[in-house]
């Protein structure tokens, strides 16, 4: 029984490490070869987990091999345009200037209902509004609306909004993030002083951040 626990933990750790090293893409953004690798890895890890007769190395070596293949293919598709076309495929234009590309859709076996569904998913109900609809290699549909139909941007109105950056987290659950404090050129004394002004201390704070305008936001623990 304990053997199963140890083997499971080893295989789980190895799978997580290799998947972590492979990158941060989500399932919906995977390239076809990446999806194949993920499915195969999960199967390879599961078999030696259930069957203790199979040496654990018989699961680990194929997982490593798939990881090596993945890194090599990613590297090739990064460096060579033609390799990328072969490995990942090429994006396909399904709508061009509000015209459905029937030939391309037939080639991809992509029916009109699928296309309309994906367009609705992108809040587009009228094909006539679409300048381009491109089916990406990951299977996602990118929709570019006609210029007169896209939402107004500040630039269209001649407005130049000020620079916005992300709020910097300073305290989480009473623990001060010293790295982020240094990032905003402040120190612990400054933070404690700010908290004292508001009648609290960093230990009592559940969450605190400094926004782009330099305002300190915090909430005490309940």
């Amino acid at each position: 029984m304990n053997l199963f626990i140890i083997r499971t933990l080893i295989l789980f750790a190895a799978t997580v490490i290799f998947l972590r090293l492979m990158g941060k893409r989500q399932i919906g953004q995977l390239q076809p070869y990446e999806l194949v690798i993920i499915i195969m890895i999960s199967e390879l890890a599961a078999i030696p987990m259930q069957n203790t007769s199979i040496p654990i190395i018989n699961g680990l070596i194929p997982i490593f091999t798939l990881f090596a293949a993945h890194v090599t293919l990613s590297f090739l598709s990064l460096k060579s345009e033609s390799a990328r076309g072969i490995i990942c495929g090429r994006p396909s234009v399904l709508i061009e200037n509000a015209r459905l590309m029937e030939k391309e859709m037939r080639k991809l076996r992509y029916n009109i209902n699928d296309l309309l569904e994906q367009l609705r998913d992108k809040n587009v109900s009228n094909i006539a509004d679409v300048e381009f609809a491109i089916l990406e290699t990951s299977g996602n549909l990118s929709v570019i609306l006609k210029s007169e139909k896209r939402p107004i941007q500040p630039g269209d109105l001649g407005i130049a909004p000020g620079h916005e950056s992300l709020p910097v987290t300073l305290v989480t659950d009473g623990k001060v993030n010293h790295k982020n404090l240094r990032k905003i050129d402040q120190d612990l004394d400054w933070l404690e002083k700010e908290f004292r002004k508001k009648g609290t201390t960093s230990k009592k704070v559940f969450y605190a951040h400094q926004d782009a305008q330099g305002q300190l936001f915090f909430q005490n623990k309940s």
Partner: protein
Amino acid sequence: MRIFIAIIISTVLIFSAGLWVNDSLQEASDHLSERIEMVCQDIKSNDWENARENIKKLESRWGDYARWWPIIIDHQEMDNIEFSLARAKEYINEEKRSLALGQLAEIRLMVKHLPEKEKVNLKNIL
């Protein structure tokens, strides 16, 4: 690029380890087969005392290999050899000539099969 170098080094290491394992398995299998042959000869010449001595040596040698083989070989196959070895030992102790020879032939085949299964050849790949 660092990950690439790590992958190349790991692949070379795994590949070399694979070659070394295949070589060691072949060597061990040959050695065990030789021992089995000696026991068979003893039985054929009705030298049961020597047969008992040699099967003990075979068992002890098998014990040495059995320590690291499970890392690479299906544990079920190892168990099968161990069960057969125990049966062969008992037949020799009871001086059952045909049963002992039959059991030893089975062990020889199983031992020869182990490196065969790990070899890189078209039959195994397909």
